[in-house]
């Protein structure tokens, strides 16, 4: 906790110094006070809450679809060489293309709005999920498979009781990466695909009246949300599973 405060305190100092330095016009570098005031105003009138909900909704839907498609696909790749040979080249070619590069295409296909944003999230999140599930399958220790089958486990049992838990450290790592890329996709998508609400839209819209304080405040909100998810969702998930099992050393341990 103390470490976090020190880091943020330092960052705040640096920002304030930068804002007051006059390197850029004052209107472009709002002070901490201005940012804080904008944040408070957005929270007070409820608009921040609505924007966050819209953005989270797009992330959750896109991520869930990506997980439903990507994790099984990655596992199939790990299990069957034929699937791997077929899918891996396609994944390798598409993976480096940033999700945002697809925005114009997705707008043409899906029109402006929610669907395009969710499609972008799906695209961005799918590849880390596929690749990590695939790696997770391949990293399952052979001795667990040998021991289990010597005790009578059939293929289905091996998969459910040995491979799935064995691959979990990688699957969780994949979820984290997918989540991070989903944020990039959704904020970028909201900015360009002109959705009506959302944190990305808020940033984009603020430029109309040079509301840089709102812009930066929104960035802060995004960062805080990311931190909360990391601590509350991912670290908790890890602690309950792979951390407890000693398969992964917990952060800060």
């Amino acid at each position, binding site marked *: 906790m103390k470490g976090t405060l020190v880091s943020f305190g330092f960052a705040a100092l640096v920002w304030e110094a930068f804002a007051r330095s006059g390197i850029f016009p004052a209107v472009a570098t709002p002070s901490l006070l201005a940012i804080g005031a904008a944040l408070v105003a957005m929270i007070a009138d409820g608009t921040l809450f609505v924007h966050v909900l819209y953005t989270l909704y797009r992330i959750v839907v896109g991520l869930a679809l990506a997980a439903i498609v990507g994790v099984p696909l990655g596992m199939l790749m790990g299990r069957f060489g034929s699937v791997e040979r077929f899918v891996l080249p396609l994944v390798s070619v598409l993976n480096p293309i940033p999700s945002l590069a697809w925005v114009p295409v997705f707008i043409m296909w899906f029109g402006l709005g929610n669907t395009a944003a969710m499609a972008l999230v799906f695209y961005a999140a799918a590849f880390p999920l596929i690749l990590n599930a695939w790696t997770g399958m391949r990293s399952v220790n052979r001795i667990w498979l*040998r021991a289990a089958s010597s*005790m*009578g486990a059939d293929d289905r049992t091996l998969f459910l009781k040995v491979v799935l838990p064995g691959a979990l450290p990688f699957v969780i790592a994949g979820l984290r990466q997918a989540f991070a890329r989903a944020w990039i996709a959704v904020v970028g998508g909201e900015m360009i695909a002109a959705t009506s609400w959302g944190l990305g839209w808020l940033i984009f819209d603020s430029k109309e009246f040079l509301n840089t304080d709102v812009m930066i405040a929104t960035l802060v909100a995004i960062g805080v949300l990311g931190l909360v998810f990391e601590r509350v969702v991912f670290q908790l998930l890890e602690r309950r599973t792979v951390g*407890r099992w000693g*398969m992964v050393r917990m952060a800060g341990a």
Partner: protein
Amino acid sequence: MRVSFIELRHLTFEYEAAERTVPALRDVTIAMAESEFLCVVGRSGCGKTTLLNIVAGFLQPTKGEVLIGGKPVTGRGFDRGVVFQDFAQLFPWRTAQRNVEFGLEMKGMASAERVETARRFLALVNLEAFAGAYPHELSGGMQQRVAIARALAYNPSVLLMDEPFAALDALTRDEMQKLLVDVWSQTRKTVIYVTHNVAEAVYLADRIVVMTPHPGTVKADVRVALSRPRDPLSIAFLEYQKEVVGHLR
């Protein structure tokens, strides 16, 4: 002629490697009585682990067969339990208790009975107090004890052990050997125990089969006629050790 409980008949195993066939085992024939403790001793590459893997059902022999209780071995089965050398053989996501329950789950045992049986086997290896611990919380010796309990819990008639104590320190190894003899005298399993440690073999076994490599064949079959518990510092013990080492040259 007495019908043996385990028969290895003319076992031959060859594998393909870079344009030639490597004979790992050639014409190995061994007969074992029920509840016998057999140690297979040899230096690395003599095929002793291959032999064990064939009896366990992980490998199919190129020629020959394995019979247990008169029936040929065709793959893995509930009549055999395996303990490997690697501590990582335990499932990290399961507690000691749940690891031991695994074979019982495979057998379809009901939950209450499973828990009770697993507890019993953990008590047998003196780990009842650690039933709720995860493998990574246990020492190497404790993990191997859980592995032994796990292999025994579903009541196989044969216990196959592949250098299970080789990665432990000498003091722990001594304790584990004593424990194993205790467990064996209580459960009366037929044991095939692979090791490169001659003193360990003389301490544990009713009978020691010495194998030599390239290809793996049986060189000698020594019966150890010492009563248990055995004293590793006694003259008789050292004489047996000398005899076995002599065959290994």
